[in-house]
């Protein structure tokens, strides 16, 4: 798939944001006033910023409100609703907590749950895509959630929790790489099933057009193996493994925490880029790809 910067930014930032908000809703860390304000500000900025950035790739952002209508069937619709609900609930919670010094725990709890649900719904948008076998697996929501919770915990200065979830994320990511690399084949997708042409070795002779098109630009992204391998290691080691080790092995001061955040966010951006760039859409088969 085409690794659109807006989508990479959206999923990374909003994941972090909703992760942070999850903790804030649970009153972790237990802070008040300006400090709490700052935490919430960061949480909202990340999640709202992420959501906004996701509208950049829309053909008609002015109609974005319509996206809330199809909650019965569409994960994107559900995501929108969850996000709005989470932001509203936690907005109220934050308002009361910061300006009225009243932490309505139930409200926070609901807000946290909605935040996690938002991240889950986001992940389900990708997970549901049978057309992208790499995504179409339980590891995708686990990865999104663990990253979100781990990153959120990191931002919320919950080092132990962060360490734990980043460990889960590390393992999930490693598994996702491993399993993702073979899933396309395992699912049995091939040019033969795509075309029904069975008797012999089959390959694309001529594409339908020498010019390019939307499908090729959007769905048939090809990435060099070496390049991908390097990024995987970088992302996995610096974005997940190293932070996990640091978080779990020693007490983390502000400076180190800042460093870990930078490492982590950078790493997740790289991993998210790979998440898209490495995702093979079955339509590529028709264009002679993924053979």
């Amino acid at each position, binding site marked *: 798939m085409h690794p659109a910067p807006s989508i990479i930014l959206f999923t990374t930032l909003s994941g972090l944001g909703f992760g942070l908000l999850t903790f804030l809703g649970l009153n972790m860390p237990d802070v008040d006033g300006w400090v709490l304000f700052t935490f919430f500000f960061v949480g909202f900025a990340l999640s709202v910023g992420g959501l906004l950035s996701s509208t950049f790739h829309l053909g008609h952002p002015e109609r974005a409100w319509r996206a809330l209508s199809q909650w019965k069937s569409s994960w994107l619709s559900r995501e929108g609703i969850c996000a709005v609900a989470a932001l509203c609930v936690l907005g109220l919670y934050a308002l009361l907590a910061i300006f009225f010094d009243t932490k309505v725990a139930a409200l926070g709890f609901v807000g946290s749950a909605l935040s996690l649900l938002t991240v889950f719904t986001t992940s389900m948008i990708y997970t549901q895509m049978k057309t992208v076998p790499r995504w179409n697996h339980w590891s995708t929501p686990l990865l999104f959630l663990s990253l979100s919770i781990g990153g959120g915990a990191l931002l919320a200065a919950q080092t132990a929790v962060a360490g734990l979830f980043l460990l889960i994320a590390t393992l999930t990511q490693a598994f996702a790489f491993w399993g993702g690399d073979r899933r396309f084949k395992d699912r049995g997708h091939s040019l033969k099933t795509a075309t029904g042409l069975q008797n012999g070795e089959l390959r694309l*002779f001529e594409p339908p057009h020498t010019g390019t098109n939307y499908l090729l630009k959007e769905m048939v992204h090809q990435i060099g193996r070496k390049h991908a391998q390097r990024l995987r290691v970088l992302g996995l080691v610096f974005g997940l493994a190293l932070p996990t080790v640091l978080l779990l092995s020693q007490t983390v001061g502000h400076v180190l925490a800042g460093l870990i955040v930078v490492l982590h966010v950078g790493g997740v951006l790289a991993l998210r880029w790979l998440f898209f760039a490495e995702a093979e859409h079955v339509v590529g088969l028709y264009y002679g790809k993924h053979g």
Partner: protein
Amino acid sequence: MTQLPGPTPKKLGLVIDLDTCVGCHACVVSCKGWNTENYGAPLSDQDAYGANPSGTFLNRVHSYEIAPKDAPAQLVHFPKSCLHCEDAPCVTVCPTGASYKRADDGIVLVNEDACIGCGLCAWACPYGAREMDMDAGVMKKCTLCVDRIYNENLPEEDREPACVRTCPANARHFGDFADPESNVSHLVAERGGIDLMAEQGTKPVNKYLPPRPKTDAQPEAEIDVLAPLLSPVATEAHGFLGWLDKTLDKLPGGAT
């Protein structure tokens, strides 16, 4: 609407005959022409006269090469447009309800006024049947020429998709798959029509008729059967003329 309507009373769609398609792209261009003027926004082109031309088409013709083990390699021309799937994933992912499957006839359409151009439906389609129009910012797809097939401003005989009407080789057939007696149902039954990428579980309505087996594999086998046809009457002119003279004499009237 984004929910699927369940079984539809009619299942309109196309049969594509891979044994007959010569890969001429006529269906591609007539589709472009019709849909540029009709349903929804025109199909735009970008950099039309430049280095990287691209544009929106709702139907495209690929070609594939098959190399069987013991026969010469073959080429198959392969047209592809929306298959109007029964379990259309492109519909259920749509967050706005713009994508829908018509309850009456099963045609999958995009309501362009409601489409936000998120592209998700195109991701969900295994077949590459949806293309975002870069000018209009909305998703385009084959409409099964819904604005032709019922169009009372068209003569009855023209109420079929533009691509079907134009196909010079008659490799495209339009009809109702819910009716076991329809032309398309018969074709599918007779020729073993297949689903593309059945493992995706989309239950395509459109069916493909696979190429018939080629006969160029084993001349030796054929020649045994056919050999008597070529048994020589003579090997040189003189003998031949003698044979012919006798043969002609034996004919009624004795003359040619």
